[in-house]
């Protein structure tokens, strides 16, 4: 196999990412924001992102796999509870969730 230069890989990764952003700009000029197609695209975007976030919490890749599923779900629930209890204070909510995962990991000896 030819040597895979990391720079070539990064260049390919950047192109594969920008492709969608650039295509989005080109298409945006052709769709009327009042259109049903446009509103459908908005729904797809929000669903995609919620799906990605849920996947990152429920089925994480990488080192977060060392933590138990119930720990991550409990931490997310605690963070949401703190978020609504503090009238949507993201700092407190995020610190609660991160603290919960760190605490459970520490107690579990991970």
């Amino acid at each position, binding site marked *: 196999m030819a040597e895979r230069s990391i720079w070539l890989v990064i260049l390919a990764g950047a192109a*594969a990412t920008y492709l969608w952003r650039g295509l989005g700009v080109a298409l945006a000029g052709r769709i009327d924001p009042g259109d049903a197609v446009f509103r459908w695209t908005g*729904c*797809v975007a929000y669903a995609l*992102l919620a799906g990605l976030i*849920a*996947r*990152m919490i429920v089925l994480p890749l990488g080192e977060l796999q060392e933590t138990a599923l119930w720990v991550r779900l409990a931490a997310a629930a605690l963070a949401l509870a703190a978020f609504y209890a503090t009238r949507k204070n993201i700092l407190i909510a995020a610190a609660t969730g991160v603290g919960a995962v760190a605490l459970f990991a520490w107690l579990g000896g991970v």
Partner: protein
Amino acid sequence: MGVREAFGLPALTLTASYLAFGSLIRASGLGLLPGLATTFGMWALPGQVALVELYGLGASLGVIAATVALTNARFLPMTVVLMPHLRAPGRPRWLYYAAAQLIAVTSWVLAMQRTPALAEEERLPYFLGLSLVLWGGCFVGTAAGYVLAGGLPHALSLGLVFLNPLYFMLIFALDLRERSRLLALMAGAVVGPLLHLLSPDWGLLATGFVAGSFAFGVDRVMARRQASRATAGRHG
């Protein structure tokens, strides 16, 4: 104004999230410079993580490019939806193509929430100010994570990895007033993990189509019912 908004919590959380990426770079035996280059060229954390992990596993260039393309296809609908929020008359087109590189989850959600309240000509400057500060924070995070790698207690670094999805979830929860968005978010969150189990490659895109179309359809039906109830009320 965007700059002011970005400093503080949004930049702080993104910087903290990129700490984990910086330490991943270190653990994968890559140098700091390639790590920073992915933050510059891609600025999409899940895609960057996939690239570094696949490279470490010895995957071919084609497999890496295809995986990154699938992971980041979300930018197509995101960009299409955001662009009308940024447009103002009399600007050159290349400016929008350049601004598109700065579309990432945090900058996108915040711009979708804030720009409708701004005057047309202030929207793009707001987005650029916001995104450039956030982007800058990610370089700081990547570098700091690389330098600090192994120095943080493991439990704390796990907490920081969790910060990324957690923060994304919270900024979406900031604004749930629009019914179609709320429906799409709920449907996507339920369907996302299930379809990922079926196909890690195509699951995310399928989630967007299935859950997004479902939310769109339900929203239309509900809007029509409301409309007919309103007319019935007027006549009855």
